[in-house]
């Protein structure tokens, strides 16, 4: 498989990147992305990024945490080692609430963090766009638009022309 090549174009302000990303999206591109130092609000809509699915992952983890906590406490306290303590029933669900709560939160938190990394395909220590000489400023004060060669509409000349037309600076094809 040929190496993925990426067009990188630089922009100066949040307004420019929103406009540029909207134009690239409207031109029918699919494998493009914006790289910004902070989440620019409105950019996700301009790029037509669907809402995050993370909530479902977290919900699943939360359910596992809650039922796991209940099972653990029921099995250890009422089945495997039943013992009367403080006159409470073996399965005293009221007393099990704090640990059910804590484990629900714990599992949800793991689901959130690792789910987020999974959806983002992170860690990924190499990406072709990082080869652009100015790309380091994507975490400082510049806004970058990238279009990948895997896109069906990708064409070295036309894509470059589009990026120039929408005001991109320091346009480069990197891999």
């Amino acid at each position, binding site marked *: 498989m040929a190496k993925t090549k990426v067009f990188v174009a630089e922009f100066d*302000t*949040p*307004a420019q990147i929103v406009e540029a990303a909207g134009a690239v999206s409207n031109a029918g591109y699919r494998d493009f*992305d*914006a*790289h*910004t*130092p*902070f*989440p*620019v*609000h*409105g950019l*996700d*809509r301009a790029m037509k*990024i669907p*809402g*995050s699915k*993370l*909530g479902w992952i*977290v919900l699943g983890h939360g359910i596992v945490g809650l039922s796991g906590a209940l099972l653990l*406490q029921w099995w*250890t*306290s009422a089945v*495997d*080692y039943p*013992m009367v*303590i*403080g006159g*409470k029933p073996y399965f005293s669900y009221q007393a*099990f609430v*704090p*640990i059910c*709560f*804590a*484990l629900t*939160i*714990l599992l*949800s*938190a*793991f689901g*959130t*963090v690792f*789910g*987020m*990394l999974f*959806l*983002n395909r*992170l*860690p*990924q*220590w*190499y990406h072709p*766009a990082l080869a652009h000489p100015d*790309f*380091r400023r*994507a*975490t*400082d*004060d510049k806004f970058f638009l990238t279009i990948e060669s895997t896109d069906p509409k990708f064409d070295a000349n036309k894509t470059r022309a589009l990026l120039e037309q929408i005001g991109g600076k320091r346009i480069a094809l990197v891999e």
Partner: protein
Amino acid sequence: MSQTPNTIPEALLPTSVFEEEKLVTGGLNFHDVTERVASVTEVKTPTAWYIAFAFALMGLGIFGVTILWLIWAGTGIWGLQQPVGWGWAIVNFVWWVGIGHAGTLISAILFLFRQKWRTSINRFAEAMTIFAVACALTFPGIHVGRIWMAYYMFPLPNQMGMWPNFRSPLLWDVFAVGTYGTVSILFWYVGLIPDIATLRDRTTTKAKALVYGILSLGWRGSMRHWVNYEKAYLILAGISTPLVLSVHTIVSFDFAVSVIPGWHTTIFPPYFVAGAIFSGFAMVVTLMVVARQVFGLKDLVTINHLERMNKIILLTGTLVGYAYGMEFFIAWYSGNEYEAFAFVNRAFGPYAWAYWIMISCNVISPQFFWFRKMRRSIPVMFALSIFVNIGMWFERFVITMSTHRDFLPSSWGYYMPSIWDILTYVGSFGLFFTLFLLFLRFLPAIAIAEVKGVMPEADPHFGHGHHGDVRHAEHAEAH
């Protein structure tokens, strides 16, 4: 939200609307913000840091030695006896956990309430949370005496075929504080990823590039990533909010679920939570006042930020004062002789000195913050925040010492700490400050990406001829 230009004359708007625009002062742009925060970790290590670090390491050494001696000799080295079987270990544990709560409050609850001013202080406060929880967890970890039995606290299959007692508040505590520590670290790390990437992209040395590179997971500011990232941040804030309220509630169950007069009260959970937030904010103010001075971060952590924290200290301090009063009222109203005695004994018995230190520091001292001048004065807030921390330590001490006059007068006693109690407590500061100084030196102390996100320039509509439109900030947030 509609984009109609704002037509309300500025003079009619509350000042808070304008303050939103001044979260960052000194006319900084995005690059300046990066520079200010990141340079703290890049410049030559200041001598003051080495001196502070030497002291912190000394404290950590003391902590290590006292713990080793404890493991060798047992809990008899502490001042524990009958009837006071719980001494400084639980006092210090509750005190440190409480301090941690401010960090989560700032990072989670204020995030959900969309209090943008939190962005300048949340990283710092979250770090404080984690280090405070580390100190806190040490105490229950070591106080078990036979530390090699500490695994009894976890539901691990073992050769005895036994399981922990899930009906005990002490076990709830293990799960609550363990979850709290873990979730705090995850939340903190998620917030750090984009900022570590910033440090990675600025670094000049190979070693730093490698370490920051690995830690930042290859973050490249992709908008497709930001969408999931922001969702993750929101969910973490959402689950941390009930968590932080539950943790100190469960810590208070350690006392409240027992049937000891003075402990067995339903007011404990809310009262402990208010006290935790109170002491935590005081600790943030203590540390922040020093750090913003030393590291030149005054444009990012402005006097307005500090004033808002002082307002929260005033609120929670007053809530705590109300709880002290209500405890007394209920002790009388319950008609229970033992309950009434426990409280009268607190205020006028052998530990009256501790009780009145608590009242002066926790109830009286925050009242100075009713005055705007006091809320905005650095020396005043620094002194008061220290008083609050002292007062909150004494609150836990007073509560724990309730048992010194139990049901049987012949067993009454007076708890005195041993030198090892004192050294262990002092040593825990060593652990705290060692971690804190390392954090200040090697990680961004202010959330760079988040601060940029609340600057007016971050709004895509900035500079589109709506200058002076105070609804910009609000508008950006509505997206």
